[in-house]
Every structure is written in C-alpha cells, then in structure tokens.
C-alpha cells in the first residue's frame, strides 16, 4: 500500500473524528450523542489500524479490539442511564440533565 494512501486513511480518520466531536457538541438527544461518540471511537480505531499497518505491527489491531470492548461497555451503561432518565422524564434531552447540577 502506498504511503500516500496511509496518510489518506489518517486524514479520513481525523475528519471523521472531528465530525463526531462536533456532533457531541451540538446535538442534544443523548442517543445521538452516544452515536457521535461511537463515530469518534471508530475514527480512532481506523487510525490505530492504519498506524499498525504503517509500522507493520499487529498491536494496532489488538488495541482496536479492546477499544471495541470498552465501547460496548460504555454503550451499555450509557443506554441504561438514558433509560433511567427517560423513565422519569419522557423525552428528556442531555440539556435537561442540568437539573442535576449542584
């Protein structure tokens, strides 16, 4: 694989990461926010695999494996929180959570 393509992967990853990040910052629906976090994680995964390829190292793929596990755990807990939240106030957005501030 050409090195330019590797760089292209990294750029794609950067763009995707920023898209995800901006999404977290501007969306209010907690589920969409979780999805945007997933986007960011995927961008990072992509760059991990690319770096692994560039360095000819399998560890890049291994760490993606772990990122996926952590992402799964994160989603499970996040969704549980959203369920708990929606039970108390149907249709609540992340902004409504500011009632929790001290």
């Amino acid at each position, binding site marked *: 694989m050409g090195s330019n393509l590797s760089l292209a992967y990294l750029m794609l990853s950067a763009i995707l990461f920023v898209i995800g*990040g901006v999404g*977290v*910052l*501007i*969306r*209010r629906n907690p589920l969409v*926010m979780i999805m945007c976090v997933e986007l960011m994680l995927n961008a990072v995964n992509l760059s991990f695999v690319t770096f692994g390829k560039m360095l000819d190292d399998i560890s890049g793929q291994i760490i993606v494996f772990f990122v996926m596990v952590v992402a799964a755990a994160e989603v499970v807990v996040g969704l549980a929180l959203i369920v708990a939240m929606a039970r108390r106030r149907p249709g609540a957005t*992340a*902004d409504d*959570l*500011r*009632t*929790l*501030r001290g």
Partner: protein
Amino acid sequence: MVELVWLIPALPLAGFLLLVFFGKRIGEPRAGWIGTGAVALSFVTACVVFAGLWNEPEHTFEASLFKWIPAGNFNVDIGILLDPLSMAMVLFITGIASLIHLYSIGYMHGDSRFPRFFTYLNLFVFSMLVLVLGDNLVLTFLGWEGVGACSYFLIAFWFEKEENASAGKKAFITNRVGDWGFMVAIFMTFFAFGTVTYTEFLPMAPGLAQTTATFIALMLFVGAIGKSAQIPLFIWLPDAMAGPTPVSALIHAATMVTAGVYLLVRVNPIIAASASWIPWMIAIVGIATAFLAATIALAQQDIKKVLAYSTVSQLGYMFLAVGVGGYSAAIFHMITHAFFKALLFLGAGSVIHGMHEEQDMRRMGALRRIMPVTAVTFIIGWLAIAGVPPFSGFWSKDDILAYALHKSPILYVIGLITALLTAFYMSRLVFRVFYGDSRWGESAEGELANLNAHTATDAADAGAEDHADAHEDSHADTHAGHGAVHPHESKWPMLVPLIVLAFFAATAGVLNLPFTENLEFLNRWLEPVVGENQVHLHLGGAQLTFELLLSTTIALLGIFAAYMVYLKKKIDPSRIELPFFANGWYIDQGITAFMGGIGRKGFELIAMFDKVVIDGAVNGVGRATRGGASRLRAIENGYVRWYALMIGVGAVLIVAFVMTQVSF
C-alpha cells in the same frame, strides 16, 4: 535458647490481640487466666533466655527481626538488644507482672470491664518489654509511648468518675512534657551520630563534643523525669493512684516509672561524655525529690497516696544513684524496690479490698488479726522499705548512700534524713493500719467526725485533688454511718502473689551484698553495660561497718519515733502532719494559680494570635475561594455539551502549543 528472645514480647502481644478481639466473648475468669498465662509464659521464656545468655560473649545478644523505617540513611529496625541490663529488667518485669496479673484476677473480680483490664495489662507488658528490649532509641520511644498510653487507659479505667478521668489526663499531659524532651534527644542523637541504634552510637559517645553530649543528656533527662516522676514533673504520679490498685503496683511503682532510670542507665556513656554539672543536676534533682516526697508522705491519710509519694521518693533515690555514678546501685534499688513496693501496693490493695474500697487510714487499724497473711507480708515489705537489715531495701539503699557519700557528704546526709523520714512514715502507715485500735465500724464514729472536720477545713482552700479526697471521705463517711464495715481476708489468687513477693522483698538483698566483691553479683553482671562509667567503690571494712550501722540506727530511729507518736501517742501527730505537707507543698495549687493568673493572660494572647492570624488566613483562603467561585460559576452552567466544548477548546490549545514546540 537465647534465640527465643522474640517470644518474650510476642507472648503478651498475642494475649493482647486475643483479648482485644475476643475478650468480651471469652468472659470473666478465663480472660484473666489467658492474660496471666501469656505473661507467665513470657516469664518462663525469659528465664530460659537468661540461662542461654550466660553462654553469649559479654552476655549480649542482638537480633534484628525486620526492617521498620528504611528511609535513606535513616534506618530503624525492629531489633532486640539483649544485654545484662535489659535481661535484668525483663526478668523482674515479667516476673512481677505475672504475679500482679494473678492478683488482678482476684482483685478485679466482678468488674464489668474485667476482660478489658487484662487487655490493657497485656498491652502494657508488651510495651514495657519493647521499651527495655528495643535496640534503638526509636523503638524504646515506641515502648515508652505504649506504656504511657496504657498508663493513661488504666488510670482512667473507671472513667465514669470524673476524678479518675482527669487524673488520667493529668498523667498523660505531664508525660507529654517528658516525651518532648525524649523526642528532641532522639533527633539530636541522629543528628550527632547518624544512627539511633544503641550498639552503634553508644561506643561513639566518648568522642562526642561535650556541648552536644550535654544537650542530649539534658533532653534525655527531661524525658526521664517525666516518666519517672521527678521534680518538677512528679505531680501526676500521686493522682495516678485513681486507677485500680494492681495498676498502681505494676505500672506506677514497679515497672513503668522506672523506665526513666533505665533510660539514663542505658545511655550512661552519654552522661559520662557530657559536662560535669549534668550528673550533679541528676543527683540533686533525685535527692530533692526523695526528700520532698518523703515529707509529703508524712501527712497523707490515703493509704495509696502514702505509697505513691513513697514511690516518688524511692525513685528519687534511684536518680541520686545515677547522678553519683552508681548505675548498678540504681538498678539494684530498682529491683528491690520493685519487689517491696509491689508487695506494699498489693498489700494495700488487699486491705482496701477487704475494707470494701476504703482507702482512708483513719478508718483502719488493728487489721493484723483479721488479715493475718496480708499483715505479715505487708510488715515484711515495711521492714524492707524502712531499711532494716537484712531485708532487701536495706542493702540497696545503703549501696546508693555509699555512692552518694563518695560524691559528696551533703548528699549523704540528706539521703540519711530521707531514710529516717521513710522509716517514719512507713511505720506510721503500718501502725495505723495493722495495729492500734480498730477504727472501722460504729465505735469510731466520734473520732472520725473530729478528723473529718479537721480535714474538711484543710480541704476547703485546697485544689481539685484534695477536693476529690474530701468528696471520697464524706462519701465513705455516709457509707460507714449506715453500718459496720466487716473487713475480711482476701482470696488465694491475691494472697499467693503477696507471699511470693514478700519472700523476694526479704531476700533480694543477696543479689548485691557489699561485703566482698564476690558477693556483688549484680555489679559483676552489669559490668559489660555500665562498667566503664561506674564509680568503683572499694570500701574498707571499717567504713562499711560504720555506714551499715549508721543506716540501721537511722531506720530503727524512724520506726521508734513512729511508735512513740502513733502507738504510744506521746506526741500529737498534728505537729508532724503539717497541712503544708498534706497539701504536697502546695505545688498543685501553685501551678493552678499560675496557670489561672499570669499563664492565662499568656494563653489568651496566644489564642488571640490563633484567631486573628491563623484562623484569618484559613478563613481568608475560604472566602477568596468562595468569591472566586461565584464568579467562575458562570461557566458551570450544567450543560454537558458546554463542558465537552471546553474540553475541545483545551484540546485545541494543547495541540496548538505542541505544534509551536515541535519542528517538522
């Protein structure tokens, strides 16, 4: 065999741990037997180790158990230094402690916190053993604090009574002054030698600069007078009698209070290396304490108070011995004193127990018929402390006086006067308790009323301590008024220790008989530890005979005087029992007055400083934080997205910063 030495402190520790966790469940009699067993086994181990120590070179054995504080070049190990000095201490500590544990089973019978009492006692024995066995100053200090804590726990054991609780606090706070000195001494020692291990720094002591040695010795002396109740820090010991009597016997007579003497003997090379006024100071403080306490003891009515002041007085003798270079004499007297004073306290405890918690001698008398065993053993103790040959006290006191004479005749003379007073007040005690008329029960009401009125006026302007006495008196008075007290002899667990101790009180003198060098067992045994700095006396036969005869005469004179005053009633006791003495030279009241007057102003000044400067700084920080926060609160708006955005801004800033730092 000597390798078993670690078992000596480990056994009481095991007993302590067992009792602290399961004491309540183990219950009354068994908890006592476990505690006693642990200490008794420790004593047996000590004997075995003692036998093993004979074969060691210089009778010294060192063992490092494990590293405790390895910090750079400051290393403190949990290590054991077993030499003749600590061996002697260990033997009499475990031995007497075993007996007192046994005694306590009888004495504490029926107490609601029976198991806890033995928990504390075991912890105390463990701490005391750490104190004497520790191979460095820090470990000794650990034990030092441990015994202090146990002493506090046990003085205030019946903390429901406010006097007991405050007596505990008094002991604790007074000891702090001494502890401060000890700690400074430890720091200075490390500063001067780079180590705090005895075997490392003591041999270096002769090469030390005199000023440094003087300072360390002075600070150690401050620590020692705190623990061993010398002028001016002796005020806590009489109050410490608020604790159960076995505690008074074990901690405040036989073992803990001798820790200061032990410490000074242990560091004798440093005293030798310090300025020549240090030994003089020690000797003067010692003899002054001995004399002062003896005069106070003359006028006390509480049987335990008399013994307490007597203890202070005897400790003064030991300090005198240290000051005049008679280290082995100090240890000798420490051992004999441990026997006879423990015996006296336990005897007093037996009397108190038999009299149903009555401590006032004015309500006793003629008890020898009712409590024969107690009386006989107590009388042996009396003869020992009074210095009547051939009982042990005679030999040890005489030994000290011989060293004192060698140093200065003045010390000798005051020492003799104190010996006279000792014989007098101890005889007074014995005559009033065991001889004369029985003043317990209804028959003595009239006399009592008189006496009470007398003390009440005394007590009116007295301090808190005497208030407590007066309170007790009136309390006991109503008790007596209800019906006759029926004294009885104590049970066997209390009597067995009395008998054993009486035997040793009578015979312990053989440890160090002054007639030939061959008979001075203790001197030769302690030679490796104190030999270099010990004053070597070679008394000729004539001088020895003269001294011994003089001492005997003095002792008999004191007894005779007491006989005249208290049994024959030729002289009015009130001419001797001056209020000045009864109130302990008004030292407590003086301190109270000072602290309430000038001292209070000073404290208020300090409190003001505390309020304005220190609190002001603290509050100021708080106020500044609150003020800043109320302005910063604007950005804490509760929107998760906003926080995330701030993280993003931070990330951008960091990336930008990194980009300026890295060249591509």
